[in-house]
């Protein structure tokens, strides 16, 4: 069995009648970093909350490492660490007390050396005797992560981990996620910062209006849906694009000094080589050229746009 989390037919309708999730089917592979992308209100947090046992689902089933989250909730939950989006900590507890509390709550025997290591890894050791209320926002975020890691989870949920986080902490966090993955921890992160998914994820799922609209290997997704652009800086400005080049659907900049050619790996548009040959034949010379791949962000925006 390769998938560590298996979600099948999960729906959630809140008491208000709001359908937060419509028939979610999703498998998370063991040891991968999975990014769940979606706009605000798409159902990301609801889905995570159901898997973690915070919200009751309306129908469907979820297993974690083969353990049903309702029937066998102890086994399922003890495998999961959750870092929620909001900074919600008992403000009057010290860092040391609250992290050890989390470990106890998940049924793990006290292990001071391990908790110390977690705090050191997150640069929190110096603050171990400080009360949570005295910590900065970034430090509180680190503390939330420390609490989630305190009980040695095999699956870690990071709900919008870098929302409102400075660059340094973001780098630290990415490094930490990679380290955890090396240890075999499966990581599921939700985000609407797409560069985060782009930098870290192995696979990407896109959720919108309570439905998973796509799950794909990240590299594959970027290859399939990504587009390339080539920009040519011309030696002499053009007044108009010659008729002979019309099949390329080129775009000419306003001052006529730049040509842009957009192509993708899927379409049957002719390649770059033939464009360059045709440009030469038409007597158009260029000074420089560059190409760029579209980012996951652009792919994502396009996907959501296609949605009805």
């Amino acid at each position, binding site marked *: 069995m390769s998938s560590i989390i298996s979600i099948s037919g999960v729906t959630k309708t*809140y*008491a208000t009648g709001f359908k937060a999730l419509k028939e979610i089917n999703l498998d998370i592979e063991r040891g991968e970093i999975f990014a769940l992308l979606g706009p605000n209100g798409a159902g990301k947090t609801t889905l995570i909350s159901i898997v*973690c*046992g*915070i*919200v*009751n689902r309306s129908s469907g089933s979820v297993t974690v490492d083969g353990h049903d989250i309702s029937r*066998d*909730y*102890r*086994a*399922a*939950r*003890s495998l*999961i660490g*959750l870092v*929620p989006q*909001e900074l*919600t*900590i*008992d*403000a*009057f*507890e010290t860092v040391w*007390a609250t992290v*050890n*509390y*989390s*470990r*106890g*709550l*998940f*049924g*793990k*025997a006290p292990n001071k050396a391990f908790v110390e290591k977690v705090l050191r890894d997150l640069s929190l050791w110096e603050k171990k005797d400080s009360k949570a209320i005295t910590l900065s926002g970034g430090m509180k975020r680190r503390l939330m992560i420390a*609490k989630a890691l305190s009980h040695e989870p095999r699956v870690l949920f990071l709900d919008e981990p870098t929302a409102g986080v400075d660059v340094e902490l973001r780098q630290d966090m990415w490094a930490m996620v990679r380290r955890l993955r090396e240890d075999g921890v499966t990581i599921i992160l939700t985000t609407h910062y797409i560069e985060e998914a782009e930098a870290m994820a192995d696979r990407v799922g896109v959720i919108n209006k309570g439905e998973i609209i796509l799950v794909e290997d990240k590299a594959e997704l970027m290859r399939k849906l990504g587009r390339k652009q080539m920009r040519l800086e011309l030696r002499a400005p053009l007044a108009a694009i010659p008729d002979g080049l019309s099949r390329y659907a080129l775009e000419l900049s306003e001052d006529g000094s730049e040509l842009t050619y957009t192509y993708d790996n899927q379409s049957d548009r002719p390649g770059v080589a033939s464009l360059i040959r045709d440009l030469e034949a038409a007597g158009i010379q260029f000074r420089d050229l560059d190409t760029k791949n579209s980012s996951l962000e652009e792919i994502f925006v396009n996907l959501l746009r296609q949605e009805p």
Partner: protein
Amino acid sequence: MTLRAAPNFRAVWAIYRVEMARAFRTVLQSIISPVISTSLYFVVFGSAIGSRINEIDGIAYGAFIVPGLMMLSLLTQSISNASFAIYFPKFVGSIYELLSAPVSYLEIIIAYVGGAATKSIILGLIILATAALFVPLRIEHPFWMIAFLVLTAVTFSLFGFIIGIWAKTFEQLQLVPLLIVTPLTFLGGSFYSIHMLPGIWKTITLFNPVVYLISGFRWSFYGKADVSVGVSLGMTLVFLAICIAIVAWIFRTGYRLRN
């Protein structure tokens, strides 16, 4: 049964310890202030006014009010300890951790109610010690005194737990103790014997559950009671059963915890 399905005693202990630590952190609020207010009751009712009141059931007035005063603090503190303990994480959002942890509802209850009840029992004993400084005390049935103390603390901690889960605002959290519990306690015979009330009021009073608690508790001290001890014990157990039933329902439905 696998090892993981075994009860999570470590979680119970972790929650219990945090709850006890909170009491020591707020020692002024949780211990000293009830002691001060109890001392004030003794000065005002025991000495100033009490000296002009005849003995009740052969007990000096100052001594007569001790069980009632202990109950007064026990009820209000049990409710406020337990209701706050579960309302606060709901309010700040840190409840997510409890809900996502491998703990059963029963374990959650034992930990929170145990913590709240322990605190109010300690408080009750401190008040007893404080009272001993002001009035001569005797305890005729120490076993039953402790039994009533523990039973009441547990019952009302459960009641407080229910209020804490039900409450959506701090105002609601204060509402039940303020509007219901305090009046019931004052009218429950803390400061008088219900035999002193005129006819109709005496009958009405018998619908007040607190009367039975205080009466039973006072019996354990002085062997004198307004209603029979069996009835007192029975009513306390009935109230405990009602609270357990409500809590069971809350957990079965996820009421205001898991939506």
